[in-house]
């Protein structure tokens, strides 16, 4: 891949996955937010950068020797996400529908947790190629954001 295409590919990957282009928010502006909002955003922002790293690897921009570690970090962080929304505190980029449709929201979060865990375990047991074959199905960040997160 040419450098340009490589770069484009990683941006496209990031956009497809999370619908995000904005740089990650820093702790400073989290300080003014309610704790529950700052907390869940710290978790989402962790997902963002670990998925971005994976995206750079998939596009060939970054060597692929740490794929297993990134998949493990994504799975571990995904396991933090549901708890971080249990406190019903509106604000941040979360739409009130998170708590109005809690059954659906939490089912999606559990599904996300299970699939990312499967990807990480598959990578460890069978190697990274086996895990990456289905990775887009595990990273349906945007499906959830389209319903539960304010439009960017």
């Amino acid at each position: 891949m040419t450098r340009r295409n490589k770069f484009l590919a990683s941006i496209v990957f990031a956009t497809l996955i999370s619908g995000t282009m904005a740089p990650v928010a820093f702790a400073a502006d989290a300080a003014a937010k309610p704790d529950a909002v700052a907390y869940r955003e710290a978790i989402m922002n962790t997902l963002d950068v670990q998925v971005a790293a994976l995206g750079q690897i998939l596009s060939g921009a970054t060597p692929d020797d740490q794929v297993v570690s990134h998949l493990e970090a994504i799975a571990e962080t995904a396991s933090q996400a549901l708890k971080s929304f249990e406190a019903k505190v509106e604000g941040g980029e979360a739409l009130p529908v998170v708590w109005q449709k809690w059954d659906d929201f939490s089912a999606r979060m559990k599904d996300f947790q299970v699939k990312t865990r499967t990807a990480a375990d598959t990578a460890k047991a069978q190697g990274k190629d086996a895990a990456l074959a289905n990775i887009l199905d595990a990273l349906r960040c945007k499906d959830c954001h389209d319903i539960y997160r304010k439009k960017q």
Partner: protein
Amino acid sequence: MNRLVKFGMALAILVAPAVAQADDQDIMNYRKQVMTTLGQQAAAMNMTLQGKAPAEQFVSHVKTMHLAITQAKKAFEPKVVGDGSIGSAKAEVWANWADFSKRIDEQVVKLAALEKAAVEGGAAKAGPMIQASLDCQSCHKMYRVPKN
């Protein structure tokens, strides 16, 4: 805004200035992604200790920090000095690579021990170790461009 329009605009803004150095930019992005993971998870971990977030998540945050620091050495190996902006990586990272990489190794060992204590005894056991386990500040002081 229409999603395609938004996407196209974002591409134009992002791509135009960066293309010439896509590779260096990739390298800088990657190590920042790893460091940001540490920063976000450290903040989350602290919140669990301060009663601002569910206490039972403490262990998972420590685990994630440990994972992230294991990603750091590879991320800093390519010698691409930061752009000189506040907080960016100084040339000393590579000039003093033996020291820098030793610090990463030590941070890996400390976070592995912290994770072990957290898994065994939660915040009660790992909490008192935290201060001595985090070398973030001392490394940043030496190797990041200061605020002036």
